[in-house]
């Protein structure tokens, strides 16, 4: 038992330790403020924040619908859940390809969009946000749905008999009581968005300041500017660890509930 556990621990912690040991700590400040990392840093945090907002705006209603789906036919509920969770298990590159097929200029939705309004989505910052929201949404929906289901239904009954409409009851009672789940879901989808690579480079491309986020910049820098690549990796690892430390065990319970 102990030996495999130690090996497993080394497998998980080893790469992180190696990254931190090999990081060019002395030059880190200069690299982070340099021409490769700084624009990517700003773009990544900006798009990750925007996609988290998108996830909350779209994900909370989706979670509410799923949380109230007990009366649906069983097959429909299962299909709905599977669709929501798909981006979690899909290779991100596949997600990027799927997004291209939907939103590229020749895509299912992209073609009429381009024909009618001249709107092109790939190669724009909006495409980055869409790719990030695609991969981040399941975290928010599953976390919020679990939290909504965990709210004692008597609070909604009490609110209704106090004159609150179903909408007001949801906004002012049920949702605030599910706030920890919402916060956990938002933080998780933010972290996922920050780390998004495959769908972004496939769907949005890579242009410094527009679509070149931290992971994309790290990948491209790796071949001839490994210092910048490692600096970016350190930033992403630190953010990921901070997120998980802040959430502690909550995200697991949120997804499980």
């Amino acid at each position, binding site marked *: 038992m102990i030996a495999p556990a130690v090996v497993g621990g080394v497998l998980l912690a080893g790469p992180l330790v190696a990254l931190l040991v090999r990081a060019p700590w002395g030059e880190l400040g200069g690299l982070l403020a340099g021409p490769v990392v700084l624009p990517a840093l700003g773009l990544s945090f900006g798009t990750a924040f925007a996609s988290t907002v998108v996830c909350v705006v779209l994900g909370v209603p989706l979670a509410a619908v799923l949380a109230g789906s007990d009366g649906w036919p069983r097959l429909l509920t299962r299909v709905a859940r599977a669709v929501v969770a798909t981006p979690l298990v899909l290779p991100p590159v596949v997600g990027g390809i799927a997004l291209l097929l939907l939103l590229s200029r020749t895509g299912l939705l992209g073609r009429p969009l381009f024909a009618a309004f001249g709107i092109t989505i790939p190669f724009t910052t909006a495409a980055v946000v869409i790719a990030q929201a695609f991969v981040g949404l399941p975290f928010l929906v599953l976390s919020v749905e679990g939290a909504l289901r965990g709210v004692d239904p008597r609070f909604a009954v009490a609110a*209704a008999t*106090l004159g609150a409409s179903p909408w007001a009851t949801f906004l002012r009672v049920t949702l605030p*009581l599910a706030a920890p789940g919402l916060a956990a879901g938002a933080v998780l989808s933010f972290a996922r968005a920050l780390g998004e690579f495959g769908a972004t480079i496939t769907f949005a491309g890579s242009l410094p300041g527009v679509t070149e986020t931290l992971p994309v910049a790290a990948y491209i820098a790796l071949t001839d500017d490994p210092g910048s690549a490692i600096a970016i990796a350190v930033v992403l690892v630190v953010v990921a660890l901070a997120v998980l430390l802040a959430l502690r065990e909550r995200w697991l319970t949120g997804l499980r509930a």
Partner: protein
Amino acid sequence: MTGALEARLGVRRGAFELDAELVLAPGTVLAVVGRNGAGKSTALATLAGITPLSGGRIVLDGVLLDDGGRGFEPPERRPVGLVLQQPALFPHLTVLDNVAFGLRAAGAGRADAREQAQHALEDQGLGDFTDRRPSQVSGGQAARIALVRALVRRPALLLLDEPLAAIDAELRPALRASIRGVLDSFPGSAIVVTHDVADAEALADEVVVLDSGRVLQRGPLAGLRAEPADPVVTRLLAGAGQDGGSGG
């Protein structure tokens, strides 16, 4: 005086069937007693609009609230207050905002709603608790706050579901007296569901005995004691709170 109720409550749910007639004069208090599963809580749920009728009708002060079909008013549009056995104070709001909640839902501004809520709490001697969270008040205080919260909307009909069942036995008489005081100054009518005859005796003008979804007997408590129509009535009136549950 408000709260003239004419109701015939029909609910069918699997093997269980509720078919009970409840009539209240304005300003009166009716106790509904019965064993677990007699249909007491279901009856309250239909009156509050939580459970729609499958048959019968509910008319309050001449307004149709439910006719078992299309004529269904949702709970938020009924002049009916409900206080549950567990007071269900909103844990994310202060006591003051709990009481102001119904006023805000009715369209009052935040400051106005809070001021009215403050007065209502002070009237009941609860002015010291306004800034506390529900987790910081005792069970008895929570029950009284829930009562104030329901009444501040000025409902025509107040429904109390086992208001004392969750309270420690030694604290019950004081709380019972407190509820009595509130109901005395309340202009509407009220229905108290209880399994404890002491509650019915202290709070109600009349008693309805419910069993298996049907009304066994109705009248003043003294009359029921003198001439019980059924052995179940005799047993219910003899023992106070032997089943301890909230009813079904």
